[in-house]
């Protein structure tokens, strides 16, 4: 295909991505080093009170010709970065802004690290088990297993919340066993729930990919292994698993990418109480604290985080591709 055709065909897509992805990203970076505040002035007004008119001096925003309050925007450099990273000690909020980003990053990484092994192992086990299920049930099984992955994350997280909340099904069953547990009330159980959601949600993806991979295991390798006297475990270890290795890398890559963006379970299950995430931080600062500049700083740090996280993984996948083809 000629370059001209290529450019023509890909232009709409590229234009959209530039306009609504690249540009906003650049703008976020720009916003992160600025701050706009209302231009305030001292004004003396006459207020009529119970004791007659009195002159009062207050602060109010300057207005321009049309009556809109004036804003003064200026470059503030790394000020918001310092705030978000907790590098600034604020006398008026000693514990307030401390380590907001690092706390979010820490739980996000914890979430990624905690969910990944279970997703991989669980998906693998399920795929191996599925291989033995009769043909007729397979379709139904797969459809049911896909559901957690397809379902709206908000709905999925809410479903888990309703299952585990006070007076929900799970606490009821647990109290039958003598365990009284209020899941949302302490840090470890709330965090466990979020991780649980993550595993519940992503396991189907790993399962489907591994299951498809299992169908492609070279039969002759398996047969010659059996002839050589290998048992099931050895066959698994030396024939099946190496065959699945690139798929494991693939699933890990996709999962890490998605898990880093964890948002819905944090919002739904805990509203930021014991758990937080980098996406949640940006969202919260933007919409709750109504500070787009600070939110932008958090957003840029989030991008740095994912870059640091992904580059080694990407390079490994890249090398794998070049070797395997």
């Amino acid at each position: 295909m000629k370059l001209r055709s290529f450019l023509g065909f890909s232009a709409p897509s590229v234009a959209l991505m530039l306009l609504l992805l690249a540009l906003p990203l650049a703008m976020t970076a720009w916003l992160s080093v600025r701050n706009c505040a209302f231009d305030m002035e001292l004004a003396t007004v006459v207020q009529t009170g119970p004791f007659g008119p009195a002159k009062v001096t207050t602060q109010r925003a300057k207005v321009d010709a049309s009556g809109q309050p004036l804003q003064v925007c200026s470059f503030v450099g790394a000020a918001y970065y310092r705030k978000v990273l907790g590098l600034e000690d604020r006398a008026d909020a000693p514990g307030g802004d401390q380590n907001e980003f690092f706390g979010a990053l820490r739980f996000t990484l914890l979430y990624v690290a905690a969910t990944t092994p279970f997703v991989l192992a669980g998906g693998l086990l399920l795929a191996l088990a599925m291989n033995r299920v009769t043909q007729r049930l397979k379709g139904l099984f797969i459809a049911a297993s896909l559901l957690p992955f397809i379902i709206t994350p908000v709905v999925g997280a809410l479903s888990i919340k309703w299952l585990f909340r006070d007076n929900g099904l799970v606490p009821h069953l647990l109290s039958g066993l003598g365990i009284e547990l209020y899941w949302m009330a302490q840090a470890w159980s709330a965090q466990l729930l979020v991780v649980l959601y993550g595993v519940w949600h992503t396991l189907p993806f790993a399962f489907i990919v591994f299951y498809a991979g299992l169908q492609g295991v070279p039969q002759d390798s398996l047969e010659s292994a059996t002839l050589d006297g290998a048992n099931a475990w050895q066959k698994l270890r030396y024939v099946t698993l190496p065959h699945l290795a690139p798929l494991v890398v693939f699933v890990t890559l996709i999962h890490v990418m998605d898990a880093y963006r964890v948002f819905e379970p944090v919002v739904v299950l805990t509203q930021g109480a014991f758990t937080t995430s980098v996406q949640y931080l940006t969202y919260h600062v933007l919409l709750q604290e109504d500070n787009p500049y600070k939110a932008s700083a958090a957003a840029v740090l989030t991008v740095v985080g994912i870059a640091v996280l992904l580059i080694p993984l990407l390079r490994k996948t890249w090398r794998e591709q070049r070797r395997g083809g």
Partner: protein
Amino acid sequence: MLAALPILWTAVISLRSYVDAFSVPLKWVAPLTLENYRGLWVDREFHRNFVNTLVVTLSVVTISLSVGCLAGYALSRYRGSLGFWLLIIALIFRALPHSTLLPSFHALFDALGIRNTLFTLVFVLVAINQPFTIWMLRSFFVGIPQELDEAAMVDGCTRMQAFRRVIIPVMWPGVVTTGLFSFLLAYNDFMLSSALTNADKMTMPAAIAGAITAESDALLMQGVAGAVSITIPLIVLVAIFQKQIVSGLTQGAVKG
């Protein structure tokens, strides 16, 4: 199975009043009622959110696929390094957390006065979807032999004519699969929908956000009904398109 348990339980309690849904001790059998659904769909006018979701989702899928097919086709046929770099950049954008775009979206759209519109939401979702879409479509197009369109061009067609006459008729399986994932992304979106729209323009997932910190029992139960309402179309979707979904998920893995 375990996987479906939370959803099944949610469906069960959606048909109960709050008292029965979360009673102490838990009842296994309780009187069924449709009042949660009525409260949601009629009193809180959830049907409006449903229409919003419908509009947004269908628009996103259509536009995404149209734009994406062109790009995917181009990427499958072009051998220069520019195509490679485009794919890499798309991959990077795919990893981008959406929240990083929010501050500028918020500021920009507010300034332009287009924040609380479905139109804006549609285009934002299309753009966010593009990286994934063009990757997926490209691998489908790679599977369509180049001889087909090359033959057409030898016969005198321009590239665009070749695309229209030869490629479009055979590209549907791949397009359907990609469309499914596009649909899921638009339908399931929460963060962008809730940040960029208000009450009556919200899509369904954003609208039931009220159930997260339900101030009243009725609100909570309506949220449960909402959750089920949102999920039913998805269940239908999985039932009908299971094969396509599976092929879409694995296809990326096999072709890397």
